[in-house]
Structures are given as C-alpha cells and as structure tokens.
C-alpha cells in the first residue's frame, strides 16, 4: 500500500536567489522527520515557482511502523515482598499504565533487576505525522530578510496566501496564520485561471502546467536554454550562468524573446552595454561571429509568447531609454579629465572612521610605492578611485574600476595605467578571473574595501588568489605593515593579528580548495606562515607521497617567517 503526499505553499513573489536555499531546507526538514519516525519513502521531490514552494513524497506507508517499547518500573526488590507477591509499588505501576500486574515482567539491567512493561505501539497515521510537522517546517526555513503581515507577527519571506495539502486524493486538514489547506492552487497571474483544483497528488505537475505554471525548475530551465539557443539566430549567446539561474526563478512560464537596439549605441563601450542589459534589465547579450557585440538581446518573459510584438517593442523602448542615458554619461563624463576629478573624491565617503576616497587614494598610492617603484603603477593608484565621481559609475556601480580604466584609455594613458585601473577590483568572486596585467595585480592586492566595504572575505580571497597566482613573495606581515603605516593609530596590535588570522583562514581555504589535504595544511600552518606561495610549496612538498618522514619534519619546521624576497 503506497501513498503520495503533496504540500504546496502559496505565497507572493519570492526573491529569485532565495528559492533554492528554501527548498533545500524544506527537503532536509522532511527527510529528517521521516527518518526520525523510520518511515520509508521514495526520494523527496521539490517544486517551485516565484509564488510557490512544493514538495511531493511518494511511496509512503499508511502508518508509521509499529514499535516495541519498554517502560521501566520500580526495582524488583521493591516491587515484590518476601513471599514474592506484588507490593503496592508494583500495583501502582501497573495501574498507571492501565495493565494487570500479570502483564509486567522482571528485566535484568546493568543496574540490577527491575519491573518493566514491554508493549507494542501502533504507528500513528503518516498523514497526521506530516500535518503536525508542517507548521514547524514552514517556520524553520531561514530567510535573509523576513516580514510580518498578521497581528500574530508570524514571519515569512512574503505573506502566506494558500496551501494545497493532499494525501493521494484526500485533503489533509492543516491551518496556519488564517490560511486553510485545501486542493485549490492558483494559475499563472496573467494567462492562467485564477484558481485550479488539484484532484490528487499525482496530477500536481500536470494540473499546473495546464494553468500555465511550470512547477518543475528543470522544465523551466530547459525551456529557457532551448529558447536562448533558438532565438540567438546565428549570433553567439554570451554565456551567463548566474543570470540563467536567476531567470529560472523569476518566471512561472518562461519564454525567450529576442529584441534589437539601435546600432549607433555600439559606439558605447561593450562593458557598459552588457552591464545595462545584464544588471538593469536581466537581458542576455549576443555577439557576432567575429566576437563583436551584436545590437540585439534576449530576454525571458513571464508569459507564453508575444504574438503581436507589443512586449518586444516595450522592452526595446526601455532599453533604448537606458542606453540613451548611458550614451549621455559616456559623452559628458569624458569632458572632465580624470586628474581634474581628484579633488571631487574629497566629497565621496569611504567609511566614516576611514575618511573619504581621497584619503583612501593616498593610502593606496603609498602602499603601491612600497610594493614597486614605478611611475605607471603610481598613476594607476592615484586614479583608480576617480571614476566614483563619474555619472556612469554613479548610475552603474557595477562598473567601478572598469569605467575608470576605459576613461583612462580614452585619455591616452598607457596600458600599464589604464589596464591596472580597469582590473583592480578583480576577482569579484571566487570564480572571477584574476587581473591579467602585473600592475592590475599589484594594485589589486592593496588591501582595499572599495566596491563594498563589507565584502571583506571576498577582498581577502582576491588578495590571496593574486599572491598565489603571481608567485608574489610578499609576506603577510609585510603587507599588513605597509597598509597599517597609513592609518596612524587606527591599526592596533589586535587589529593586526585579526587581519593576519583572517588572511591565513582564506589562504587555508583556497589551498584546501585546490586539493591539498586538511591535515597537511594544518601541520604547515602550525609553524606559522610567511608568504602565500611559500606556504603552498611547503604544503605541496609535504603532501607529495615520495617524501619520507624525515623530510616532512624538516619542511614543516622550516622557519615560518621566511625573509621577504622582493
């Protein structure tokens, strides 16, 4: 006898990035519940759209398995008198459990002999176990930011609006925050029926597909991926996994649409065009066969199609207005030379106790001077934050650094300057490319929290990645020392050691990610660290199987703070 359980939680549009984590948590919570009660089941399947989170569990038994339970009573010495007949204590124990004294038995335990009752517990109906757990499972999902909407102050990502809760074809009663479970779900907002009855748990996916809602993320993904390929029409899609993940979770019924923009906008740098499309409109970009950007885009609609072209015209018009703005900024920003903008940095706050970006520029310049004596690096350091005063970066903050680099190139600065500025925020994520130029790498390792003062972990990761990739032999100590000289008394010994251990953790993480075993890393880190490449080579030496144990000792105890080679 097998049963299928369906639970659909209906809400209002959940932010795209939060859906997968919520589904993972829900799945884990159901798995734990079923494991705790030893209930067998098929793998749990999760479904979602922006407006709903759902779970289907198949092959469930009617009841939890029966269980053998032993209830311990008083010690045998108390339960029976000298003649061997039951005492008041034994009778009381039996009465409490609702059985005759004769049903009790004496058990040997390691604490002695005890009176006990062995009984068989009939398993509760699984549907009840699930229904009772639902509230806690829903409440246990943790969200980055929640809201309240009822007087009970129950918190969730958005208001709860409906529940579908079915055991095969029967509704399982469940109620939470004024919402009653039933079999009524909701169709697509614009092209589906407002309400849709789910006859039984097995027909969930099918019923909703008829209501223009694709609840299987994989199905949406394939529909989008197929559409992107089909609509690219001979041009190449600029791959963007992150955007693809996002649009999968932004739509109930995705359809890919192709649009165009005026080719005259191609005179604006490609970086700007792609950013406008990517960050502001969630559009995919296309390139021609020779790699140049094409004056077209692909977008994913939340509907089934665009027969009369009005949606395409709407999207094209919005993009046109945005590109018009970008073109205006590109032309007007270049009327003021980067160097003439330096004093404007006095008006841009970096962080309250760390002053303005002008102050920051001075520090970056000073540290660069200590890393390498080069005019180009010094120029790059001086100008690297200036683009924060341009209208383009004020509007498209994602382009900070990149824009400064492009404007510097336009002004005729050599590659050693413009490219360093262009690249100095890299890597912006664990998987992002490192700076290609040496100056970009040097500028990038100057401890800096500009793009986001709190993305410290990313910053540290970027710093360590660059040190490793470039074999820069600066020791952590010396880098911290260079940086702290600019902060007067702000950098105390405590701050220094916090920064050091922070950097060490990132180094540990990155080396571990590259495949070095944890225990090897621990032994190498235990003796303290000098430069990042040095730590890596020692760890690799230890991990290498050809080494014998004597060498191992030598390597791990080699002096940690190796003299700096610069």
């Amino acid at each position, binding site marked *: 006898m097998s049963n299928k359980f369906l639970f659909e939680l209906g809400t*209002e*549009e959940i*932010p*795209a990035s939060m859906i997968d984590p919520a589904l993972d948590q829900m799945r884990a919570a159901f798995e734990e519940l079923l494991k705790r009660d030893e209930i067998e089941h098929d793998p749990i399947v999760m479904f979602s759209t*922006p407006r709903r989170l759902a779970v289907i569990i198949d092959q469930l038994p009617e009841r939890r398995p029966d269980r053998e339970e032993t209830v311990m009573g008083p010690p045998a010495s108390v339960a029976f008198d000298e003649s061997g007949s039951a005492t008041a204590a034994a009778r009381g124990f039996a009465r409490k459990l609702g059985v005759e004294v004769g049903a009790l038995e004496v058990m040997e335990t390691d604490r002695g002999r005890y009176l006990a009752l062995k009984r068989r517990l009939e398993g509760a109906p699984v549907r009840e176990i699930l229904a009772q757990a639902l509230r806690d499972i829903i409440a246990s999902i943790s969200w980055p*930011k*929640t*809201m*309240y*909407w009822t*007087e009970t*102050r129950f918190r969730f990502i*958005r*208001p709860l*609006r409906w529940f579908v809760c079915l055991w095969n074809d029967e509704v399982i009663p469940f109620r939470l925050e004024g919402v009653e479970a039933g079999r009524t779900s909701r169709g697509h*907002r*614009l*092209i589906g029926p*407002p309400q849709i009855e789910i006859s039984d748990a097995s027909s969930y996916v099918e019923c909703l597909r008829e209501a223009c809602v694709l609840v299987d993320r994989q199905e949406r993904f394939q529909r989008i991926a197929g559409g992107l390929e089909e609509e690219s029409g001979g041009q190449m899609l600029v791959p963007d996994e992150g955007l693809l993940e996002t649009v999968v979770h*932004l*739509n109930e019924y995705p359809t890919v*649409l192709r649009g165009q923009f005026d080719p005259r906008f191609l005179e604006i740098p490609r970086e700007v065009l792609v950013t406008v499309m990517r960050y502001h*409109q969630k559009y995919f970009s296309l390139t021609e066969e020779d790699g140049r950007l094409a004056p077209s885009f692909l*977008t994913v*609609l*939340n*509907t089934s199609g*665009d*027969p*009369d072209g*009005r*949606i395409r*015209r*709407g*999207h094209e*018009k*919005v*993009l*046109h*207005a945005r590109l*018009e*703005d970008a073109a*205006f900024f590109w032309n007007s920003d270049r009327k003021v030379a980067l160097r003439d903008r330096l004093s404007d940095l*006095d*008006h*841009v*706050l970096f962080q*309250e106790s760390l002053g*303005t970006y002008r102050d920051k520029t001075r520090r970056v310049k000073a540290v660069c001077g200590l890393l390498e004596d080069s005019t180009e690096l010094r120029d790059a350091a001086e100008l690297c934050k200036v683009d924060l005063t341009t209208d383009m970066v004020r509007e498209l903050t994602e382009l900070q650094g990149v824009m400064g680099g492009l404007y510097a190139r336009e002004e005729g600065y050599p590659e050693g300057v413009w490219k360093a500025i262009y690249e100095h925020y890299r890597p912006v994520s664990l998987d992002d490319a490192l700076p290609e130029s040496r100056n970009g790498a040097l500028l990038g390792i100057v401890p800096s929290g500009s793009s986001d003062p709190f993305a410290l972990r990313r910053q540290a990761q970027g710093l360590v990645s660059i040190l490793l990739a470039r074999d820069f032999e600066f020791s952590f100590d010396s880098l911290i020392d260079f940086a702290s000289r600019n902060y007067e008394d702000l950098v105390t010994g405590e701050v220094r050691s916090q920064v050091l251990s922070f950097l060490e953790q990132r180094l540990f993480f990155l080396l571990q990610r590259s495949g070095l075993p944890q225990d090897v890393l621990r032994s190498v880190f235990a003796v303290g660290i000098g430069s990042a490449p040095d730590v890596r080579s020692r760890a690799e030496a230890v991990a290498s199987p050809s080494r014998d144990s004597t060498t191992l000792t030598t390597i791990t105890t080699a002096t940690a703070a190796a003299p700096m080679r610069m």
Partner: protein
Amino acid sequence: MQTFQEVIHELLGFWMKYGCVIQQPYDVEVGAGTMHPETFFRVLGPKPYSVAYVQPSRRPADGRYAENPNRLYRHTQLQVILKPPPADVQEVYLESLKVLGIPLEKNDLRFEEDNWESPTLGAWGIGWQVLLDGLEITQFTYFQQAGGVDLDPISAEITYGLERIAAFLTERNSVYDLRWSPQVTYGQVRRREEYEFSRYNFEVGDKAMLFQLFELYEAESLRSLEADCVLPAYDYCLKCSHTFNLLDSRGAISVTERVGLINRVRSLAVGIARRYVETDE
C-alpha cells in the same frame, strides 16, 4: 488611454470605487508620496485607513534641465495606502492596471524584489518593483516600520510612477511629448519649470541661506513638537528634508555634514511619530 490626465483620472476613480479616501497632494515640498502626512501618520497606530492621492515629488538632484527624455526634477506619483492590506492586494492592484486599458494577458509582468527604505523618515518595508514589459511602473511595499515605530497592523503602499505609465500607454519616447490633455503636451505644461528649477537647484540656490533655513526649520519643528503641535512639527520636518535635498544638489554638503544632517531629519521624524502615536486617541 491617450492623455496624462486620463491616467490620473482613471486610477483615482478605481481607488475611489474600491473605498479609498481620495486626498489631495500635500502642499509642502516632498520627495515622495510616502512623505505626505496621509501616509506618514496614517500608517502609525491601530486604526484602519485607506487613501489614494496624487503627489508631485521633488528630487532636486534628478533634474536634467528638461534635456533628458526620462528624468525629471519633479515627477508625479500616485500613492495608495491600504491599511490593513486585503489578502488579494496584488490582484486588486492588477485590476487597477486593467482599467488603464493595459491588456495584461498580452504583456510581460513581474514582481521583482525591491525593498524600500527611507533613512530620513526612519521607515522601511518589504516588497517589489513591478515591471511591465521591462519598465518599472510601480513600487509595491509592505510597510514594516515608519518613524522608527513598528507598525501594527501593517499597510500596503502602492506607488505608481505616472509619467512612466503614461509614456508606456501612449508609446512616447520622451516624457515631454506626452499628451497632458488632448490639446496640450507635457512639455508645454512643465518644460520651463524643469529647466528653471534645474538651474536653481544646481547653480543658483544660496547655500548659506539654505543652511540657515535648515537650522530655522529644525528649531521650529522641535518647538512645535514641544507644544504638542505634532502635525505642524512634521511640516517643518518636511521642510528640513527638502532643504537638505537642495543643499545636496548644490554640492554644499561635505561628507561629515551629510551623515549628521540626515540623522537630524530622522530624529525629528522619529520624535514626531512617537508623539503622534502617544497622543492619537
């Protein structure tokens, strides 16, 4: 729907039929419809209230001398407050778009996360921007806090950007080409205003005087509040906020001053909200 004024008329008509009080724009300069007392005060406390009104909203730094087809120093919001919001509040909102003649089944509509926050008002909420064929036409927010006070019940705030909606409906590329009425364009009504205020906000405003005004307005706000004139105190708080925006667009505010001035406005708003709740019987 062919004109700007029809859009306003239809939306107000829809919300009037829905049961909202139809209010008038506030006559003190504000940066957003949220700052209108009909939102700021009404969302506080337990009393249910539903209201809709048009609010011209001044953002001095957004001025573009009437040269940019999409950016305005003063744009027009239509603001709706539903306290408490009905369970089908999103559906009601979509109905309101239909009365504008937008065939939703032929459009691409999305609610994308966008949580609204106003540091000067000590207010924030959870919600979305509503995108119609890629164009942001509405900000939809479930208020959680205003004037630093937790709200109970909460309110839903629906803020329509009227110029954008009208431009969308009439397929115009520049806001100035919109028809305001069948005979008159948006540009004819507003171009000179945009140009002169852009000049004033960026070039002409007297910084020293504006600083003085800020001080005077702040003092008067505090004095009024002291005398339990809570609503008048709020008027002066709004004047502080607008004066701050003028100083900002004149580039008169240094880094350190900026944080300080925002906090001063915020602390007025918080004091006013608290006193309003205490004295609201």
